C-alpha cells in the first residue's frame, strides 16, 4: 500500500518536471549506448558494426522512452489535459458558436440552479442561522385531518411526557405598530417560548435570550429581544441598547438582547423584527389570556428531536400523548390529534403556500434544460458535420475511437462547465427574486431568499454532468458513423422535401416543440385559473370599499377607551362627503389572521354523536353587510340598537341556516355561542372568509358591541380613491389622538389579490420559463430550417430552374417547418393531457384538459413556428439557380 501511494506521488510529481526527466532519460540512454559501443569496439568491431550491435541488443530506443514516459507520469491526466487544451482551442476558434451554446446552457442550468436554491432556501434549509435544521420539525394540532394550531397547556403536557423530543419551541407570528422617534411602522414579531433562542442555537450578540421564568406569569415579563436589522436601522446600532425601553403594543418593554445578523426568526416568508416571551401573549393576541386555556389554539410550534430519533418514532410517542389528552380533556381535545411535519411541509407559513408552485417549477426547469440541451445538441450536430473532415483525419492517423469520444466529451464538459458557472451566477442574481413576485404589504419586510449551499452546488454539478453526457452523445453518434472509406466523398446535400440523414436534428426539434407546448398549456391553465380566481366573486364588493387598521392596542387603549374612540372616529368618517358608510369589524376576510371560533348548540338540532359543531364567526359593527356589499337573504342586520344592553343577536350565513335549520327559517331561533344564547335576526349570503378557494362553509356574525375586542379593521364604502381617504383619515385620527399610527389604506381588491399571490407567483414563474422555453424552441426551429435551406441550395436551385415559383418554394419550406411543429404539438399535446393533472390544486375551476388552454397553446406555437421558419423560407425564395447549380 505504501509503495502504491509513493508511486502515485512520484508520478504526480513527475507531471511537473517533465522536461527535466525527459532530458535525464535522454542522457542516460545515450550514455548506455555509448558504453555499449565502446565495449564492442574494444571487442574488435568496426565503429559502424559496434553501433549497430549496440542498438540491436538495446531494442527500440523510442519504444523504451515511450514505456518510461507512460510509467513515469499519469497518462490519464496528461491526455485529459491535452484534451482540455485542445478543446479550449477548438472552442475559441468558433467564438460565436461557443457563446451561443454557453448562453443556452446558462439559461438552462441557471433556471435549474435558481429553483434548486429556492427549494433549499424556502423548503429544506429555511433558517440559515438555526443549528441542525435536520432535527427540526413543525408541530400542529389536527382536527378532522386538517392541520390546526395548538394550545399552551397541551404543549406543556407534551413537554413533560415526551422523552424523544429535545425541546418544544413555541412561536406565533404577530404584527404591531412600532413607533421609534417620530416614525411609526408596522412590524412583524414573534411570541416565543423562553427556551426559543437556546433551542435553536441562536445566541444574541448583545444581552441575553429569554429565561425560563419568563414563560409564566400573566403579562409579568415585558422584555424583548430585537433583530439585528431593527437594531441597526432604527436604533442606529446603539451599543448601550440593552436595558432601554420600547413601547410594543402599548406596553413598555425592556430590550434585553439583540439577535445576531442573518437571523430572521423561524417563519418562512417574513423577517421577524422582535421577540417577546410567551407570558406577554395576551398583550399581542386577540382573544384574551390563553396560557391556561386548553381550548385556545394559537401556537405555531416546532420540535427539536433528540439526535438519532426519527420522525416516525417521535410521532408515535406524541400521538400516544395526544390520545391520553383526548381522554383526559374531552371537552377541548376530543377528535384532535397532534402531528409533526418536516419543515418543507410546515402548514402554517409560506412553505405550504409555495410548496406546490416549487414542485411544479422543478418539472418546468427540467423541461427548459432539456429544450436548451436539444438546442445545443443541434448546434453540435451542425458542427460535427463541419468537423467530419478533422475527425476522419484523426482516425486515419491512428487515433482510437475511444480517444475521439473522450475529446468530444471533454469539449462538452468545457461547454457545460461554463454553462454551469453562468447558471450559478444567474441563481445568485435570482436569490432574492422570489420575494419580488409577492405584492408588497405596508412596509413589512418579506424574506424569501434562495440558499446556495453545497447541496445546491452538487445538484447543479450533477445537472452539468448530465448535460455533458447529452451533449457528448450527439457528436459521438455522428463519429460512430464515420467510415474511413467515405472520407473523401463529398457531403451530399440535404433535401428539403425529404427526411434523410437530418432526422436526428428534426427529432430534436420535435422534442423541443413538444416540451414547450406542454409548458404553454401549463402556463395557459394557470393563467386561466388566476383569472377565474380574480374574477370569481368573493361574496363581497371588492371595489368601492377601502380597508385600514387603526392600531389602538399599541396606542395603549383599553377596551372602553377603544370603543369610544372607534365610535367617535366612525362619526367623523361618515360625515365626510363621499363616504357612504363605514364600519369596524374584528377580522378582515382573506387575511392571515384567524376568525373567532366556537362550539355551538342549536335549538332543535341534534348533532350526530361524533360531531361537535364548531363554527367561525366575526365580530362586526352596524351596517357591516351593507358596507361590505354582502346581500341579506332575509331578516335584518345589526343596528346601533344592538348594544351591550340589548338582547344578544346573531346573523348567520345561508350555509349555516341550511345546515342547522334544514330549510326552516332560522329567524327568531336561538344559537348557543360560548355559553350565551343568541337570537338569529338575519340570514346573509355566503361569502369567502379565509381563502377564495374554500368551499361554502357555515359562518355567522355577532354585533361588535356585544362581543367587544380592541382589535379591528375599518371598512369605508366610498367612490373616493384610497389616497384621498387616507389623507382624510389620518387627519381625523390625529385630531383624536396625535400619537396613533394608521396602517396603509387599501381597496378590498388589493386584499383579494394578496390572498391569491401564490397563484400569481406560479403564473409569473411558469409564464417566464414558458416564454424562455418558447424562445429557445424558436431558435432551435430557426436553426434547423435555415441549415436545411442552406444545405439544399442546389436542390432549390434545380426546382427553381424547372419552374417552381418563389411562392411555391416558400410554401415548401414553411410546410416542412410546420410539419415538424405539428409533430411536436401532437406529441406535446398527448404529454400535456397526462401531465397537467400535476398542477393539482394550483388550478381553480379549470379542467386540466381545458380546451381553451390547449387551443391557445396551439395558436401561440403555430405563430412562433411560422415566425421561426419565415426567414429561412424567404431566403429559399432568393435562390439564384444560375449560381447555385454551378457551385
Amino acid at each position: 500500500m505504501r509503495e502504491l501511494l509513493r508511486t502515485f506521488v512520484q508520478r504526480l510529481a513527475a507531471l511537473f518536471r517533465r522536461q527535466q526527466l525527459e532530458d535525464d532519460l535522454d542522457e542516460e540512454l545515450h550514455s548506455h549506448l555509448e558504453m555499449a559501443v565502446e565495449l564492442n569496439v574494444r571487442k574488435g568491431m568496426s565503429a559502424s558494426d559496434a553501433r549497430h550491435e549496440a542498438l540491436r541488443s538495446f531494442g527500440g530506443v523510442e519504444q523504451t522512452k515511450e514505456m518510461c514516459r507512460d510509467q513515469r507520469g499519469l497518462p490519464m491526466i496528461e491526455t485529459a489535459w491535452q484534451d482540455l487544451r485542445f478543446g479550449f482551442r477548438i472552442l475559441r476558434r468558433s467564438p460565436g458558436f461557443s457563446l451561443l451554446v454557453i448562453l443556452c446552457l446558462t439559461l438552462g442550468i441557471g433556471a435549474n440552479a435558481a429553483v434548486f436554491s429556492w427549494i433549499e432556501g424556502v423548503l429544506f434549509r429555511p433558517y440559515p442561522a438555526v443549528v441542525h435544521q435536520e432535527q427540526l420539525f413543525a408541530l400542529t394540532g389536527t382536527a378532522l385531518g386538517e392541520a390546526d394550531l395548538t394550545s399552551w397547556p397541551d404543549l406543556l403536557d407534551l413537554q413533560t411526557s415526551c422523552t424523544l423530543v429535545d425541546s418544544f419551541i413555541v412561536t406565533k407570528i404577530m404584527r404591531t405598530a412600532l413607533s421609534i422617534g417620530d416614525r411609526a411602522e408596522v412590524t412583524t414579531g414573534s411570541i416565543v417560548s423562553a427556551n426559543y433562542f437556546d433551542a435553536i442555537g441562536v445566541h444574541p450578540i448583545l444581552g441575553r435570550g429569554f429565561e425560563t421564568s419568563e414563560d409564566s406569569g400573566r403579562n409579568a415579563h415585558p422584555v424583548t429581544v430585537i433583530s439585528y436589522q431593527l437594531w441597526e436601522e432604527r436604533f442606529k446600532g446603539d451599543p448601550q441598547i440593552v436595558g432601554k425601553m420600547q413601547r410594543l403594543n402599548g406596553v413598555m418593554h425592556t430590550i434585553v438582547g439583540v439577535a445576531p445578523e442573518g437571523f430572521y426568526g423561524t417563519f418562512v416568508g417574513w423577517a421577524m423584527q422582535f421577540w417577546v416571551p410567551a407570558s406577554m401573549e395576551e398583550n399581542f393576541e386577540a382573544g384574551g389570556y390563553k396560557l391556561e386555556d386548553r381550548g385556545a389554539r394559537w401556537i405555531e410550534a416546532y420540535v427539536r428531536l433528540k439526535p438519532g430519533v426519527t420522525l416516525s418514532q417521535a410521532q408515535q410517542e406524541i400521538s400516544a400523548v395526544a390520545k391520553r389528552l383526548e381522554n383526559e380533556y374531552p371537552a377541548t381535545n376530543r377528535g384532535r390529534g397532534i402531528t409533526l411535519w418536516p419543515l418543507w411541509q410546515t402548514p402554517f407559513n409560506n412553505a405550504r403556500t409555495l410548496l406546490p408552485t416549487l414542485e411544479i417549477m422543478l418539472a418546468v426547469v427540467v423541461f427548459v434544460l432539456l429544450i436548451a440541451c436539444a438546442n445545443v445538441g443541434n448546434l453540435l450536430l451542425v458542427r460535427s458535420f463541419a468537423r467530419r473532415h478533422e475527425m476522419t483525419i484523426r482516425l486515419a492517423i491512428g487515433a482510437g475511437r475511444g480517444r475521439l469520444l473522450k475529446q468530444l466529451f471533454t469539449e462538452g464538459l468545457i461547454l457545460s462547465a461554463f454553462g454551469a458557472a453562468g447558471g450559478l451566477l444567474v441563481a445568485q442574481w435570482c436569490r432574492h427574486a422570489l420575494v419580488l413576485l409577492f405584492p408588497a404589504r405596508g412596509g413589512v419586510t418579506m424574506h424569501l431568499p434562495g440558499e446556495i449551499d453545497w447541496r445546491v452546488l452538487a445538484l447543479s454539478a450533477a445537472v452539468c454532468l448530465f448535460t455533458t453526457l447529452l451533449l457528448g452523445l450527439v457528436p459521438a453518434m455522428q463519429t460512430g458513423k464515420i467510415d474511413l472509406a467515405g472520407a473523401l466523398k463529398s457531403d451530399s446535400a440535404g433535401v428539403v422535401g425529404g427526411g434523410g440523414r437530418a432526422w436526428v436534428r428534426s427529432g430534436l426539434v420535435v422534442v423541443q416543440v413538444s416540451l414547450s407546448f406542454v409548458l404553454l398549456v401549463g402556463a395557459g391553465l394557470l393563467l386561466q385559473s388566476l383569472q377565474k380566481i380574480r374574477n370569481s366573486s368573493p361574496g363581497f364588493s371588492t371595489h368601492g370599499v377601502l380597508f385600514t387598521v387603526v392600531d389602538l392596542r399599541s396606542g395603549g387603549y383599553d377596551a372602553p377607551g377603544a370603543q369610544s374612540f372607534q365610535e367617535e372616529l366612525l362619526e367623523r368618517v361618515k360625515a365626510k362627503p363621499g363616504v357612504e358608510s363605514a364600519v369596524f369589524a374584528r377580522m378582515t376576510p382573506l387575511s392571515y389572521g384567524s376568525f373567532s371560533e366556537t362550539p355551538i348548540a342549536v335549538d332543535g338540532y341534534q348533532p350526530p354523536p361524533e360531531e361537535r359543531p364548531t363554527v367561525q364567526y366575526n365580530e362586526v359593527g352596524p351596517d357591516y353587510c351593507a358596507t361590505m356589499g354582502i346581500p341579506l337573504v332575509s331578516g335584518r342586520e345589526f343596528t346601533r340598537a344592538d348594544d351591550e344592553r340589548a338582547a344578544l343577536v346573531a346573523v348567520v350565513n345561508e350555509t349555516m341556516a341550511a345546515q342547522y335549520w334544514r330549510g326552516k327559517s332560522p329567524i327568531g331561533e336561538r344559537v348557543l355561542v360560548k355559553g350565551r344564547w343568541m337570537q338569529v335576526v338575519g340570514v346573509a349570503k355566503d361569502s369567502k372568509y379565509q381563502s377564495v378557494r374554500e368551499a361554502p362553509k357555515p359562518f355567522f356574525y355577532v354585533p361588535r358591541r356585544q362581543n367587544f375586542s380592541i382589535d379591528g379593521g375599518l371598512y369605508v364604502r366610498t367612490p373616493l380613491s384610497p389616497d384621498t381617504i387616507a389623507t382624510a383619515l389620518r387627519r381625523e385620527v390625529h385630531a383624536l389622538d396625535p400619537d396613533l399610527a394608521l396602517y396603509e389604506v387599501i381597496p378590498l381588491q388589493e386584499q383579494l389579490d394578496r390572498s391569491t399571490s401564490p397563484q400569481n407567483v406560479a403564473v409569473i414563474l411558469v409564464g417566464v420559463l414558458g416564454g424562455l422555453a418558447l424562445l429557445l424552441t424558436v431558435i432551435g426551429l430557426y436553426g434547423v430550417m435555415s441549415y436545411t435551406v442552406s444545405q439544399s441550395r442546389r436542390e432549390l436551385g434545380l426546382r427553381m430552374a424547372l419552374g417552381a415559383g418563389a411562392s411555391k418554394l416558400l410554401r415548401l419550406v414553411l410546410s416542412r417547418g410546420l410539419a415538424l411543429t405539428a409533430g411536436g404539438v401532437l406529441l406535446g399535446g398527448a404529454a400535456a393531457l397526462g401531465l397537467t393533472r400535476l398542477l393539482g390544486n394550483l388550478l381553480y375551476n379549470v379542467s386540466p384538459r381545458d380546451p381553451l388552454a390547449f387551443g391557445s397553446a396551439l395558436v401561440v406555437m403555430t405563430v412562433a413556428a411560422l415566425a421561426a421558419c419565415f426567414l429561412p423560407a424567404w431566403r429559399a425564395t432568393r435562390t439564384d439557380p444560375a449560381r447555385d447549380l454551378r457551385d
Partner: protein
Amino acid sequence: MPFSKSEVLQGTLDLLVLKTLDSMGPMHGFGIALRIQQVSEDLLQLNQGTLYPALQRLEQRGWIASKWGVSENNRKAKYYSLTRAGRRQLVEEAESWDRMAAMINRVLRTT
C-alpha cells in the same frame, strides 16, 4: 496459461535487478544489463532497453535510488543503489521465490 509472459518477466527482472545491486553495489544501467547477461550465462536474452522502465519502476517504489556519477571510462552515467526498503524487499521476494520454486519442485517430483 496462468501468467502472461510480460508478467513473469517483469517480476523476475525486478528480482534480478535488486539482487545484482545487492551483490555488486551501486551500478549504472549498462553495467546491470551486462551483469545480468553474464550471470545468466546469456540464457536470459533480454532487450537491454526493457531494463529502464524496470529501473524507473523500482525507483518509484523507493527500493532503489539513483545518482549521477562518472563511469570508469570517465563517462557521465546514472548510478543505481539499493535502499534499505529495497534490501527488505529483496529478502522477501527471494524467500517467496524459494518457496515457490520448492513447491513447484515438489509437485514435479511427486507425479
